[in-house]
């Protein structure tokens, strides 16, 4: 599904986003930041889950390792963010590459469970690593940046740029030679291999890109919360959202996770403030279960069905008209 000119739309979104930081109060870009974080995670998850057909339950692990890469760098040399972000991408990309090799031996549920196990093992490592604060956690002190209204506004704009970049990459993958190969793997790995698709290499690309993207989403997290400890960095809600958003939006194209993330993310931020943060979690769970059971193609699928239905109705009506005429 191609939505009208992507790049102009992306540029406009970015400009509006930047402008908005000067007119709205702090709360909106804190909420906005979290929605965008979810969007990157969902987009990343979908590259493996939706395009390639491998379920990753360990998204929180990749996210947290991105965050901890920042913590390590901050503690060691406190480099600027444009160094931190690529570093997190590299670390988590390598982690993703490792997970990719798991696909050699593990399919389906076993792969999913292995990724979950991987996340918990990483969490324990961080809990026991004094350098990054262990179980207690580590503080990050941020400095004001020029031009932006506040540090959070700055992070919001950065996140917006990263989100647009991630979506653009997912969109590219979706429609490229690689994306077509991944779709073949998702449909039937054996048949894909026999059609000349180098399945292992493509799966490795898929897991690496997924890992790197999640690492990027996590890289700014320490600067956003200014305090990182394992329990919140490896939070299950990160993993659940990364799955729920694509499932709700629709997993077969790059658009689904974007729609799912914007929708679910906004609903979550709204309920968090207006009702309670527990209820917001309940909503995620209920929507996830509801969508996988009743609308497996997600919102995108529902929209396509609806479009097909209206087209049919219109044709039927036209048929009736010509019959009466």
């Amino acid at each position, binding site marked *: 599904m191609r939505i009208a000119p992507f790049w102009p739309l992306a540029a406009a979104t970015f400009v509006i986003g930047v402008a908005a930081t000067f007119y709205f109060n702090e709360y909106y870009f804190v909420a906005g930041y979290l929605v965008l974080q979810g969007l990157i995670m969902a987009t990343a998850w979908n590259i493996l889950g939706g395009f390639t057909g491998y379920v990753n339950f360990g998204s929180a692990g990749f996210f947290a390792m991105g965050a901890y890469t920042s913590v390590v760098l901050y503690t060691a040399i406190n480099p600027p963010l444009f160094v931190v972000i690529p570093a997190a991408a590299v670390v988590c990309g390598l982690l993703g590459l490792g997970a990719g090799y798991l696909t050699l*031996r*593990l399919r389906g549920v076993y792969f999913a469970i292995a990724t979950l*196990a991987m996340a918990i093992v990483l969490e324990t*490592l961080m*809990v*026991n690593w004094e350098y990054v604060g262990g179980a207690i956690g580590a503080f990050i002190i941020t400095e004001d940046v020029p031009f932006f209204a506040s540090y959070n506004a700055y992070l919001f704009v950065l996140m917006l740029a990263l989100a647009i970049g991630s979506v653009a990459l997912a969109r590219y993958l979706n429609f490229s030679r690689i994306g077509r190969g991944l779709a073949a793997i998702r449909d039937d790995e054996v048949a894909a291999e026999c059609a000349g698709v180098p399945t292992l290499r493509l799966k490795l690309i898929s897991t690496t890109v997924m890992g790197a993207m999640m690492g990027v989403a996590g890289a700014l997290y320490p600067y956003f919360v200014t305090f990182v400890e394992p329990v919140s960095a490896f939070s299950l809600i990160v993993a*659940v959202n990364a799955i729920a958003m694509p499932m709700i939006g629709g997993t077969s194209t790059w658009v689904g996770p974007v729609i799912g993330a914007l929708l679910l993310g906004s609903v979550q931020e709204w309920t968090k403030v207006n009702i309670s943060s527990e*209820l917001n979690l309940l909503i995620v769970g209920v929507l*996830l279960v509801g969508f996988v059971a009743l609308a497996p193609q997600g919102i995108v699928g529902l929209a396509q069905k609806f479009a097909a239905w209206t087209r049919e109705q219109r044709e039927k009506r036209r048929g009736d008209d010509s019959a009466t005429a």
Partner: protein
Amino acid sequence: MFSIDLLSNALVAGLLLGGFYAAVALGLSIVFGQLDIVNIAHPAFVILGSYVVYMTNTALGWDPVLAGVLFTPLFFALGVAVYRIYYAGFERTGRESLAGLAFFFGIMFILEVVIILIYGVDYRLVEAAYIGQTLRIGIIDLPYRMLVPFITAMAMTGGIAFYLSRTFTGRAILAVSQDRLALELMGANPIRIKSLAFGIGLATAAVAGALLIIIGPVEPSFGRLYIGRVFAIVILGGMGSIKGTLLAALLIGVSESFVQTFVGPSWADAVAFSVLLLTLVVRPQGLYGRL
């Protein structure tokens, strides 16, 4: 610090813990090991068991073990219902892998949040005369809060093993995932057998939940740590072999106890997950591999 005293106590504590782990993994051993249903929400159902036991313990003063046993019919019915939904929504339409996983992932999450909405995130505990007391045999300490769960777990595991190998329905449960059609050719209805098995799987969660809250205070997100343990145990135990499950549970219990004693408590949680990862990569058929 490496004394006989410490060593033997770590071993005994590990065995007691492992016995309890067997009770937690038992239901999953049936549901995942025998039926191939990836009920990742099983530990969440165990936590649900803990909270219903907590409720009757504080409100009515029921003994936790007794309460756990009394709740098994309710959990059984819940299990049958969950399986029917799963069957209608996923298994019958052949979407069990990706969508089915997400389904149970969502259920796990819902259970956790519902408990938080009702009871909050604080730790809860139960009261019984034996909790807090310790049986001492020589240099070995046997705290009742570990001993009672261990004995109950062994009784339950033995009972389930007996049921599976000695009754017609039990054997049918063992057979259903090996060859569904062949079972149908024996005159059994596979869907009925699977509903029963799933129900039994969840019924064990009520008892396991009671044992969990006897051992120590419980909070709603406790279940997550058990995901790795139960899957490690079931897979290491060879997918559905009760003997294998028990052995793997004891092994994990002892390993965790040793790591806790000699390395540090903060590393203990990773033991099961590391074992799981290793098993998956190196020997996916587990200790007692199914053919």
